[in-house]
C-alpha cells in the first residue's frame, strides 16, 4: 500500500541527488526505477584526493617555486619592478626638464606613487592564510590607482622650464596617445610579476588590485619621462592608464572564467 508521505520523502531525496531509504511501497519503487540516484561515497576518498594533489604539485614548475616565496619577498619583487622602471627612465629616458624640475616635488610624487603601488600590490597578493581583506578596503585600493594620477593631473602643475613642456596644440592627440601607451608599457613589469606571484586563481578584485599596482608603476615611468606639464594632457594621456589596464584585466579574467 502506498504512503503519500514516504513517496514525498523519496521524491525529495531523488531531487536532491541522494539515495532514498529502501521501501516496499510501490510508489517509491516506481520513482526510484524512473530516476535511479547516482551512487555517492559516504566520506572523502583521502587516498584519491592525495593522489590528485600530488599530480597538481608535480605540475607546479618554475612558477610554483616563485609562488612559494614568502609574501614579503613577493611584494618586494613587485616593488623592485617599480624601482627598476623608475631607474631605467631616469637613466635612459629622462624628461628633458629634469634638471629644472623641483626635486622635492618629484621625490614626493614618486613616494606617493610607490606607497600606492605597495598598498595595491599588498591587496592583490593578500595571502590566503590571513582573514580575507574587507572588500571595501580592497575597492578603495583599486580606486587609489585612479585617484592618484587624477590628483596629479588636476592639481597645481610645476612650472614649464623647457620647450618640451609645452608642445604645439596640433600634437595634443599624438602626445596623449603616446603617453597612454608608454604608461601601459611601464606598468607591465609590476603587473606581470604580480600575476606570476599570485598563489591562486585571481578573482576580479585581485586582478584589479594588481592592475592598480601596475598602473601606479606606469605613472612612475610617466612622471620621470614625460615633461608636459599641462593638466589636460595628463588627463588625456596619463589618467586613462589605470582605466585601460583595469579594462584589460576584466576582459582577460572574464574570458578565463568562462573557459573554466
Amino acid at each position: 500500500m502506498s504512503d503519500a508521505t514516504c513517496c514525498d520523502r523519496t521524491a525529495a531525496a531523488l531531487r536532491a541527488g541522494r539515495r532514498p531509504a529502501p521501501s516496499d511501497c510501490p510508489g517509491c519503487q516506481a520513482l526510484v526505477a524512473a530516476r535511479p540516484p547516482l551512487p555517492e561515497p559516504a566520506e572523502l576518498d583521502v587516498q584519491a584526493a592525495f593522489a590528485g594533489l600530488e599530480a597538481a604539485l608535480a605540475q607546479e614548475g618554475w612558477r610554483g617555486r616563485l609562488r612559494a616565496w614568502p609574501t614579503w619577498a613577493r611584494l618586494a619583487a613587485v616593488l623592485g619592478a617599480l624601482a627598476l622602471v623608475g631607474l631605467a627612465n631616469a637613466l635612459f629616458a629622462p624628461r628633458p626638464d629634469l634638471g629644472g624640475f623641483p626635486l622635492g616635488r618629484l621625490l614626493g610624487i614618486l613616494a606617493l606613487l610607490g606607497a600606492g603601488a605597495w598598498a595595491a600590490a599588498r591587496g592583490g597578493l593578500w595571502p590566503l592564510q590571513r582573514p580575507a581583506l574587507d572588500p571595501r578596503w580592497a575597492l578603495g585600493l583599486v580606486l587609489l590607482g585612479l585617484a592618484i594620477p587624477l590628483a596629479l593631473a588636476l592639481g597645481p602643475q610645476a612650472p614649464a622650464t623647457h620647450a618640451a613642456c609645452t608642445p604645439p596644440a596640433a600634437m595634443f592627440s599624438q602626445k596623449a596617445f603616446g603617453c597612454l601607451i608608454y604608461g601601459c608599457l611601464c606598468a607591465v613589469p609590476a603587473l606581470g610579476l604580480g600575476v606570476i606571484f599570485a598563489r591562486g586563481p585571481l578573482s576580479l578584485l585581485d586582478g584589479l588590485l594588481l592592475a592598480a599596482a601596475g598602473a601606479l608603476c606606469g605613472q612612475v615611468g610617466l612622471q620621470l619621462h614625460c615633461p608636459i606639464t599641462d593638466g589636460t594632457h595628463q588627463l588625456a594621456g596619463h589618467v586613462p592608464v589605470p582605466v585601460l589596464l583595469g579594462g584589460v584585466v576584466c576582459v582577460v579574467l572574464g574570458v578565463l572564467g568562462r573557459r573554466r
Partner: protein
Amino acid sequence: MQDLTDEELMERYVAGESQAFAELFARYAPRLGALFRRALPAWVDVQDLVQQTFLQVHRARRDYQPGRPLRPWVITIALNLRRKHYRVVSRATAELVTDPAESGERGRKQLERAEREEALHQALAKLRPNQREVLELHWFEGLPFAQVAEVTGASLSAVKVRAHRAYKALRGLLEPEA
C-alpha cells in the same frame, strides 16, 4: 611521524620532509572534507577544494611562523577558498547510504536522522554568512573563540556576539521542526 604534533610536522615539511606533508594531509583531509561538505552538494567539488587547500598550504609554507598553531592557519585557507570560488549552498548532509538489508526500524531511524540533519543545514543556510562561519568554526570544528577570532579576523568580543546571535537564531529556526 604519527607522534609529532601538527606544528612539528609543518616545520619538518618547510624544512623539506615530504612525508610530513603526507601525514598532515591524512590528518586534515577528513575534517576539511566535512567542512566543505556542509556547503557543497557534490563530493567532486569537496575533493577539489581539499586539494586546493593543501596546494595553498604548500605554496604558503614559507609564510608559516614556527610555533604558531597550524589548525587555524589551515582552516583560514580553507574558508577563504570556499568563499572565493564557490557559492555556499545549503544542501543535505552526507548521503544516506543504506544497506538494502537495513530496511525496517534501522532504516527508518537513519532516514529520520538524515531529515534532522537536512533541517539543520537548511537552518544554517538562513543565517548571516559571518554568523554561520563562526558557528561552523566553534561548533563543528571545535575551535575556541580565540582561534575563531584569528581565523575570521574579527575581535574576540565580536566573535562571541556573533556566536550568541547565531545560536539564538538557529534555535528559533529549528524549534518549529521539533
